[in-house]
């Protein structure tokens, strides 16, 4: 529809300008503009509200997040926006960016943090974490605080970083606004409750809560698809990148985003909802003599028990809380639960009868699996690619498949649909196109670098790029080999080093290559290179960090402590970025 003076509230000049602009907008731009206008309109009305309610006391809050995969950061930003809309003067910052000398002045400190691996703080919170736990941390007697902890109950030290902050803030004299909440993978609802409670406390401080006509304002996501509302993406391509004879199976998946309006950037991750193994669900039903056809209600929708167990509940991970809920004690040994599933547990504990409701009440929701995106939209319009390593292991001669990778490897076929959503990761992004980058990855950890290279080629980036890759065998496991060779040939990639651990008697890993090339590596750092590490935390990232520290110490002629400091500076400059799992 063309805007005219007669059919719109605009004058002729405005109508002409708008018509010009509108004609050139994409669907996504229109949607964005719509949201933008609504939001600015809200702000305007708020200002009006503020003026008329000047009796309200100004309340300030600082949200600090420690985030590895971006969940904590996203929550922090959304809560920040909502607080701002409700007249709380809010600062949202990554712990890495927060000047610690301002800590003492904070009125309300809201901490949202995840926990890495075995109880470690996320990369971008390490400095702050160390500071607050040090002797230099100030007394916080005038501060209120609240902690929201994100974690995964399958780890022993569940939500440890949040627990540490909570404990330490009490020690420093801060007063708790609301009790800490520890969230499992399925964190949304609990996080929301925590936030509502926090918000009410803050409103109470400002005196707003007494006002009847001030319902709390909510931020509505402008994205069509989300974790709660995943997109069904058609599988366009599925390739096992490993050759016959490999011990591994790594699947390259290409998914269609046609007309979905889904956008992402290199460095982001893709959430994929898996389906549990049908045989395992059947075994579970049989163990408990349950009828899979009986109906159960999930999110107000009735589905069969089989469907519920296939798509909605996790049955493959034995978390400590889960074992407790089944009241099983005296497991054969401490690590028994690792890698085993619920059928193993029920069989071991000889539990043979539970109702469907009893069973489901003990289970946690099947979490989405996150995979680093391996493509750039600039090259693959309306497509997203991921690289999925099949997890397969044996315990007592019985084979177990990873839930999502097993599903992708064994069941997903070209033409099928996968439920997906984009998980932003602002902390794993390409720098300016002229800045050098060093990319380090093993196995599927190479995935985001494929996206990086695609992006950089499209940008005609001038920054040099160095890739370190490791896997088992050159002949069978050199993931995306022909693409790297082309990027090298075309100069998109400046240099590449590989470590194939099992091609010789002594195993060789990427960290050895880093040390071998130490002088050059250090030289790149001095020239401002950004380091990326992607892959398995325990098996790779730690050793790589040790190697980098060694290189810094050797070639920068620094002590171990100075090298540590050098790395901390890199962290602060966002030049040491990790996407580890």
């Amino acid at each position, binding site marked *: 529809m063309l805007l005219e003076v007669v059919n719109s509230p605009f004058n002729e000049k405005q109508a002409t300008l708008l018509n010009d602009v509108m004609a050139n907008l994409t669907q996504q731009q229109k949607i964005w503009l719509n949201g933008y206008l609504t939001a600015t309109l809200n702000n305007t009305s708020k200002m009006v509200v503020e003026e008329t309610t000047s009796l309200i006391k100004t309340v300030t809050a600082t949200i600090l997040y420690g985030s590895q995969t971006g969940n904590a950061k996203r929550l922090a930003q959304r809560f920040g926006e909502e607080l701002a809309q409700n007249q709380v003067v809010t600062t949202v910052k990554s712990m890495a960016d927060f000047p610690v000398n301002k800590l003492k002045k904070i009125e309300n400190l809201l901490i949202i943090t995840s926990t890495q691996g075995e109880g470690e703080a996320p990369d971008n919170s390490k400095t702050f974490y160390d500071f607050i736990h040090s002797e230099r941390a100030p007394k916080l007697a005038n501060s209120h605080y609240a902690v929201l902890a994100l974690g995964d109950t399958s780890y022993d030290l569940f939500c440890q970083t949040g627990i540490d902050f909570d404990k330490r803030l009490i020690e420093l004299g801060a007063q708790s606004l609301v009790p800490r909440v520890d969230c499992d993978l399925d964190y949304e609802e609990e996080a929301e409750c925590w936030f509502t409670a926090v918000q009410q406390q803050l409103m109470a401080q400002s005196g707003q809560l007494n006002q009847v006509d001030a319902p709390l304002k909510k931020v509505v996501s402008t994205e069509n698809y989300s974790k709660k509302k995943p997109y069904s993406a058609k599988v366009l391509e599925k*390739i096992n*990148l490993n050759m016959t004879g490999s011990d591994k199976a790594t699947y*390259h998946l290409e998914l269609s985003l046609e007309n979905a309006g889904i956008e992402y950037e290199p460095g982001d991750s893709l959430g994929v909802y898996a389906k549990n193994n049908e045989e395992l669900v059947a075994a579970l039903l049989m163990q408990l003599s349950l009828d899979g056809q009986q109906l159960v209600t999930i999110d107000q929708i009735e589905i069969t028990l089989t469907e519920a167990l296939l798509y909605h509940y996790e049955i493959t991970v034995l978390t400590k809380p889960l074992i407790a809920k089944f009241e099983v004690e005296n497991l054969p040994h401490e690590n028994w639960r690792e890698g085993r599933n619920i059928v193993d547990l029920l069989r071991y504990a000889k539990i043979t009868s539970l109702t469907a409701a009893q069973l489901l009440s003990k289970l946690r929701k099947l979490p989405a699996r996150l995979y680093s995106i391996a493509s750039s939209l600039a090259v693959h319009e309306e497509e997203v690619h991921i690289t999925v390593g099949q997890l397969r292991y044996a315990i007592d001669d019985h084979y177990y498949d990873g839930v999502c990778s097993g599903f992708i490897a064994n069941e997903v076929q070209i033409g099928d649909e996968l439920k997906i959503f984009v998980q932003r990761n602002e902390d794993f992004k390409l720098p300016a196109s002229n800045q050098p980058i060093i990319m380090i990855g093993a196995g599927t950890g190479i995935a985001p670098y494929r996206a990086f290279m695609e992006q950089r080629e499209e940008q005609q980036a001038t920054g040099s790029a160095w890739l370190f890759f490791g896997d088992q065998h*050159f002949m069978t496991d050199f993931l995306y080999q022909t693409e790297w060779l082309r990027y090298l040939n075309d100069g998109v990639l400046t240099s590449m*080093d590989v470590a194939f651990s099992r*091609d010789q008697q002594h195993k060789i890993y990427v960290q050895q290559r880093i040390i071998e090339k130490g002088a050059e590596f250090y030289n790149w750092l001095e020239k401002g290179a950004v380091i990326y590490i992607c892959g398995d935390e325990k098996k790779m990232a730690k050793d790589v960090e040790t190697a980098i520290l060694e290189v810094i110490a050797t070639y920068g002629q620094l002590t171990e402590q100075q090298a540590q400091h050098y790395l901390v500076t890199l962290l602060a400059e966002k030049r040491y970025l990790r996407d580890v799992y």
Partner: protein
Amino acid sequence: MTGKIVLPPQEGQTAPNEGIKKASNYLRGTLQQSMAEPLSASIPTDDQNLIKFHGSYMQDNRDERDERQQKKLEPSYQFMIRVRTPGGAATGAQWLMMDKMAHQYGNGTLKITTRQAFQLHGILKWNVKAYMQEMNNALLDSLAACGDVNRNVMCNVIPSMSAVHEEVYQWAVTVSEHLLPHTRAYHEIWLDGEKVIDTPQTEEVEPIYGELYLPRKFKIGMAIPPSNDTDIYSQDIGIIAIIEKNKLIGFNLTVGGGMGMTHGDEGTYPQLGHLIGFVLPSQLVEAAEKIVTIQRDYGNRIERKNARFKYTIDRYGIDWFLTEFDKRTTFELQPAREFHFERTGDRYGWMQGTDEKWHMTLFIQNGRVKDFEDYPLMTGIREIAKIHQGRFFMTPNQNLVIADVTTAQKEKIDELIKSYHLTDGAHYSALRRNSIACVSMPTCGLAMAEAERYLPSLISKIDRLLQQNNLSETEITIRMSGCPNGCSRAAIGEIGFIGKGPGKYNMYLGAAFNGSRLNKIYRENIAEEEIIMELTPIIKHYAQTRLQDEHFGDFTIRAGYVTATTDGRNFHEIAKNSK
């Protein structure tokens, strides 16, 4: 002291290979770096050409090409290494080393080539050097096993059948050693030999070859009549031992034979060597060297597919050659002596030599040594190699001779032969016992059709025809090459097949059983069904009207299926009245 060799100028743009050789600093190129480069199992084109001189070809497993491409992996690049074994001789220790290397670095099999050499396939780039060093430790090398130089010198097998045979074999070794390149490149690159200081060379590094080496590969073979197992006429230089009263008196020489051609280019053709005369043993090395230098100077360096010695001889004529040879040699060539060839095939089974020692010729289908189901060939030979005190000889027909066995040891070896089901081929048809196939798919880059993997099953089908016609024990030579380069010397098979495309072959008939006449194309581009259909009436006709001791090749000419090819230059001519 030899000055720089200056070649007579040739008109036109020299072939790209010539530039690569010239720039290579005597076969070094950038091999040292490219063999260590870690991101690709391949090496650049120039180095691919140079590594041939070191006895290796870069190949890839063509069976995996499509799959690897889909998986975003480069082709499975790998190296074939051909070992220089003059006369096909190897000790038990050398055999064991080759066997071990085949498992450690190769694809777990060994190939006995049609030129009596070991061939190992499937060696990853980064293992080539380690392999070369192991080989060196076992006193073997692959220097000049391929490339534009004189290659492995062939020699009639069972040299130990008599003292004369041993003498002839020693001449093969001598000629081979004499014509080796002198460059230190092989030692530097593979054996960590000391690098020659980079000073301007005033003296020629290669006194025989010069810095451009030969325009094309060069092959020498020696035969002891009446056996023509080395296919003397297919060699650039054929050396025929002349023996009188059990004494080696000298050699007849042939020049200008060769098998290769290009499909669709009648200017290329297989050719048989021309008999030029007789030399004394003491003149042999000089004769060979001078012939090589004639080809060095006059071989075509513009058009590579016309660069073989046979084209040089045909272009200038044999009289010109004789004049040129005379100019270069210090002796007079004598008229050729009488000799007679009977056959090209091997004689299988145990034979006792004049020195009382025993020699066992094992049948090895197409020279492929591996463990088959119910036929642990590779294990069997390995066990024999562990106790065998004599030598092994690889034959030009891709078989294996366990030579120099004492009577006392014969029993033990016989036991092993039986327990591992090794065979003298007696239970196979005479056709199969006289078959040769090159490697072809999946490793040979030139292959257009299968050879080694296919010929055995084709023979089974032809065997049925022979059985029906009572010809199972009639010796007929059958040879298959996957491409027209002719490693299996298919152009001198009584039944010859040269690959045209997947499953398609040109079929040739009419070669002489003793290797003295080329065959002629009978049908072009046919598949198995047509092959059988075409052969059915001919074999029946042969069985019915065959003259006494008439060979199949001679019969197909007499009966008019093909006309005789009297010279390589009429190989492509087809008489209008041929059936």
